[in-house]
Structures are given as structure tokens and as C-alpha cells.
């Protein structure tokens, strides 16, 4: 009798735990759904034209179809008046600064990963570098902002103050016009974001390289290829799909970061897009932060609309990552 009851109890416990598992897993999914729904609801006001919406869906006037989206939200600059405000400067700034960040972080990160996986001897120094990188990944992004502020925006005060630069290269109207120190310009922003994502790029690239079967390396070395020939012609091509996936994830992190750029002092309101590498810029997450922090309801709606745009951009990024992974993946060994 008691044996049966113990058995029933254990089975019941098992079922109860499964129910708990299902509950907590669905809670996680529900939270995600709630997050997206609340932002869509709040963001729809400035993203869509209600007149055009009702014209198309209630009256079937298909000529109004392109007017459903309020394009001026994407093409206007920020404004004190919510009805006139847009995210043009922030979108362009985000794209610029992410491009610069990618151009700097990817070569450095992938280079470090290749060195550590393919060249470095396994000794205490390598272990230290490895440990250092993994702890850098845990450093808060705002601390990288402080490094960026001192090293790039002010350049340790070596070239005068950031407001009144001592050195400049190139004509003012050229895109490669650079001043030292970098001030709050695109180059300072890109370099600061590079600091934030570099550990992520290194770690994901190393994992990608480690996943390449060592038989490929050994075969290459056995027929007389040098370590660099092996790395550049055998290991790297085999690891590229995973490296790219990691790189795109790192870039989406860069695109969503506001804290380090806030520390280097990028402006909130800006009425032109950057002309050169030293020009001021603002980014989408910082614009969202500014709007969400204001007391008025309509600015909250603007923030939600900007979030929708940011999330769509990130989804496109990740879509590209998934596509590349599928397309480039070749069976190995």
C-alpha cells in the first residue's frame, strides 16, 4: 500500500515539475510577446497614417497604399514638436558608426582569434591573454565609454582640448577630414564601439576556428604548407560562415549600444547628417533614450516608433546572418 503511494507521489511530482517547466518556458515566450506588442501599440501612432489606413482597409482605396507609413518619421530630423520629429540623423549616424566599428573590430578581432588558435604557443602568456579577453567581455559597456572618452575624444589631452583641436588633416569638405583629438566625431564613436564588441568578435571567431576539424589542418601542414598558408587557405575559409554569424551578432550589439556613446558626449539633437569622419553624429538608441526619458506621452510614442525601426533593422541583420550561415556552410570532414 505504502509502496504504491510513494510511487504515485513520485510520478505526481514528476508531472508537477513538467507543468512548472512548461509554465516558466511559456512565461518567457509571453514576456517576449508582451514586449513586442506593447511597443507596437505605442509605436503605431507615429509610424502609420490613420487616414490612409482607414482609406485602404475600410474603403479599399489602393492608391493610398504607400501613404500608410508616415515616411516623414524616417526622413525628418529630431524636433521639439512630436508631430514634426523624425529619426533621419539618428539612422544615418547609427549606420555610419556601425560601419566604422565593423571595419575596425572585425580585422582586429578575427586577427587575434587566428593568432590565438593557429599560431600562439600554449603557454602561460597565451593563457593570460585568453583569460583577459574573457574578462573583458564582462566589463560594463559604460566603462569602455570612459576609455573612449579619454583615449579617443580627448586623446589624453595631448593635442589640446576636444573643442579646440590642434591638428587636422585633409580639406574640411572631404569625407576623410580628420582632427586630433577626435572629439565627439564619428571616428571616436566607432573606435569606442570597437572596444565594446572586440571581445565578442574574438570569442566567437575563436569558437568558429576551433570547430574546424584538426584533420584539415594536419593534412595541409603535412603537404608542406606553412602555418599562415594553412590558416588563410584552409582553416579560415572553412570557419567563415560561423565567423560571419558571430560578427553580425556583434554588430547588432554595437547598433543597440547607447551607454558608451553617451559617455563620450554625443549630442541628442542634431540637424544635419555627418559629412566627414570628424563630424558630430547621434545614434538611434540614444535618441530613443532621450525620448523615453521625457515626461510627455507623445515623446514616449516617438520612442516606441524609433524602437520599432531599430528592431526591424536588427531583425534584418540577423536574417542576413542566418542566410549566410545556410548559404556558405559546407560539410566538413
Amino acid at each position: 500500500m505504502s509502496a504504491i503511494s510513494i510511487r504515485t507521489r513520485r510520478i505526481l511530482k514528476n508531472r508537477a515539475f513538467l507543468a512548472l517547466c512548461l509554465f516558466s518556458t511559456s512565461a518567457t515566450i509571453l514576456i517576449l510577446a508582451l514586449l513586442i506588442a506593447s511597443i507596437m501599440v505605442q509605436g503605431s501612432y507615429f509610424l502609420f497614417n490613420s487616414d490612409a489606413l482607414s482609406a485602404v482597409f475600410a474603403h479599399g482605396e489602393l492608391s493610398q497604399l504607400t501613404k500608410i507609413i508616415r515616411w516623414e518619421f524616417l526622413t525628418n530630423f529630431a524636433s521639439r514638436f512630436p508631430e514634426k520629429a523624425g529619426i533621419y540623423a539618428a539612422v544615418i549616424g547609427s549606420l555610419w558608426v556601425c560601419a566604422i566599428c565593423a571595419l575596425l573590430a572585425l580585422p582586429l578581432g578575427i586577427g587575434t582569434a587566428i593568432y590565438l588558435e593557429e599560431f600562439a604557443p600554449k603557454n602561460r602568456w597565451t593563457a593570460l591573454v585568453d583569460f583577459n579577453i574573457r574578462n573583458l567581455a564582462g566589463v560594463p559597456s559604460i566603462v569602455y565609454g570612459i576609455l573612449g572618452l579619454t583615449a579617443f575624444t580627448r586623446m589624453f589631452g595631448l593635442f589640446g582640448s576636444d573643442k579646440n583641436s590642434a591638428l587636422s588633416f585633409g580639406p574640411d569638405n572631404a569625407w576623410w577630414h580628420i582632427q586630433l583629438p577626435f572629439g565627439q566625431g564619428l571616428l571616436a564613436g566607432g573606435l569606442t564601439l570597437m572596444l565594446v564588441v572586440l571581445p565578442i568578435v574574438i570569442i566567437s571567431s575563436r569558437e568558429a576556428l576551433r570547430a574546424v576539424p584538426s584533420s584539415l589542418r594536419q593534412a595541409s601542414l603535412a603537404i608542406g604548407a606553412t602555418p599562415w598558408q594553412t590558416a588563410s587557405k584552409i582553416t579560415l575559409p572553412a570557419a567563415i560562415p560561423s565567423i560571419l554569424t558571430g560578427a553580425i551578432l556583434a554588430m547588432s550589439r554595437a547598433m543597440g549600444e547607447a551607454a558608451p556613446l553617451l559617455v563620450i558626449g554625443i549630442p541628442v539633437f542634431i540637424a544635419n547628417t555627418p559629412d566627414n569622419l570628424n563630424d558630430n553624429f547621434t545614434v538611434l538608441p540614444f535618441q530613443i533614450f532621450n525620448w523615453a526619458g521625457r515626461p510627455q506621452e507623445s515623446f514616449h510614442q516617438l520612442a516606441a516608433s524609433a524602437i520599432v525601426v531599430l528592431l526591424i533593422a536588427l531583425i534584418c541583420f540577423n536574417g542576413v546572418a542566418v542566410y549566410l550561415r545556410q548559404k556558405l556552410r559546407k560539410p566538413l570532414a
Partner: protein
Amino acid sequence: MSAISAKAASSAVELARKGVTRSRSARDAWEFVIRGLLGGTALISIAITVGIISILLRETIAFIQLPEIELTDFLFGTTWSPLLGAEKHFGIWPLICGTFLVSIVAAMTAIPLGLITAIYMSEYATARKRAILKPIIEILAGVPTVVYGFFALLVITPALQGACNFLFGTPIFSGYNAGAAGIAVGIMILPIVASLSEDAMQSVPRSLREGAYALGSTKFDVSVKVVTPAALSGIMASCFLAITRAIGETMVVALAAGGLAHMTLNPADQVQTMTAYMVQIFLGDAPAFGVENLSSYAVAMVLFLVTLVLSIIGNILLNRYREVYE
């Protein structure tokens, strides 16, 4: 047998080398240059660490040497009022307390949910369900933190206020509060807990599970009494790394937790975290130089040290489980 084949391979390498004798020195030089360049990129990560530590140290020392600052007051003081009033106080503990409160709420949200989700994915779910679930949870990790700040301020806070109003007749939670910020940070770090713990559980050898089943265990027994203890160091590593992220999180607390630094453990109150104070200073509420500005570097130093220690512990734990099972 293997010795013979190794000998054969090495003589094959020798033969191959003889065929390219003329270009060998050029090739070796090129190889040397490449190795140097790649090694140089690896040194950058060391330079970053050295840069962070030296800048923070320099400014923190400058801060401590200011005539109005006493080191004991900074390290043990319980009043933080750098911007208000005639008499300024720089005792770090209110900021640590605020950071701690937000992180505790975040951990209490993320660890139970994340751990149970990890057990479900690793032990209960079919391969197909796991293939759907894992990307969904990873979406949560890809959402920018400022979005969680928006969520905390404009969805979680009103929801908490509404619920308390319904239950107790008063909203209890203030417009800015540690609870909502903590819950949002918890949702943000949930994927770290879930995904790293699941990895740790997946690397527990099958034989342990099979042994337990053979003794008549239910799935519950196996997952809670066998797999979880076996994966414990990995699970703890995931918790440490997640809490490190929570402590360093900036945009959520800057938006939703408020700006009043005081000693409280009440999640319904507004608090100021270390990161939120730095945001306040760098957004330009204080002059660019002087005591307020320097104080933000001292706060950054404390923040850096706390996260560094936690992340070192997390990585040591992670190494340990990798050594055991991989």
C-alpha cells in the same frame, strides 16, 4: 604502426620542402611578418585592459587627493549627495546598495525562470521543440538594452502600480523604482542563464542519466538530483556571468530606476545605481571638471572592480566544468 606513419609523413614533408627551396627564405620572412602582425592584434586586448585600469586609477587617485574628499568617507560613508546642498557627501554605499537591489531583483527574476527553462530544454523538450525554443530565447538577448529601459518605465512600472492599486488600494511603487528596473534587467539576462546552463547540462555524460533511469528514477529525479548537481559549476558560472551583466547594465536603470541615492532595500522605492550616477554626470548635469566629474571615475573604478571579480569567478567555474566533461 603510428611511429612508422609519422616517419613517412615527416619524410614527405622534407621532400615537399626540397621542392620549394628557392622561395623558402622569402616564405619564412613573410610568415614571420604575418605572425608578428597577428600577435600585435592580440596585444591590443591587453592594451585595452591596461588602458582602462590606468585611466581609472589615475582619476581615482586624483579624486581621493582632493582636499574635500576623505578615503574612509568614500569607502565607508552612507551618504551620497554630490550635487545637492551646500555640504557634499561622497560615501559610495548608497550607490552600491542601489546597484545591489536592482541586481537582486534581476537575479530573482532570471535565475528561477532561466534555470527551469534550461532544464526543460535540456531534459524534457524534444529536439524539434528545442530547435524552436532556443532561437526565441536568444531573441531576448539581442534586444537592445534601451528597449528594456522603455519596457521597464512604461510597461512594467504601470503594471506593478496597477496590480498594487487593485490589491491594496494604493500604487505603492513610485514612478521610478528599483523593482521594475530589476525585472527588466532580469528579462535581459535570462537568456544568459538559460543558454549557458543548458550547455552545461548538455555536456553531462549520458551514462549518468542512464544509470539513474536504470535505478528507477523519474525524469524529475534525473534532472533535479543527477543532472543539475553534475552541471552545478556550469550553472553557477552562468549565474555569475549574468549578474555581472546586471551590475553593469546602464540604460535600463538610467531610464527606470530614478536618481535618488539612498540606503534602501525596498524595491518600490527609487534608487540610484553606480551606472546611473555616471550617466547623470556624463549627460552634463555637472561641470565637466572638478569634484563631481572626478567622482564618476571613482565610481567607475568600484564598478569595474566588482564586475571584474564576479566575471573572474564565473570564468574559473566555467573552466572547471569544461575540464571535467569536455
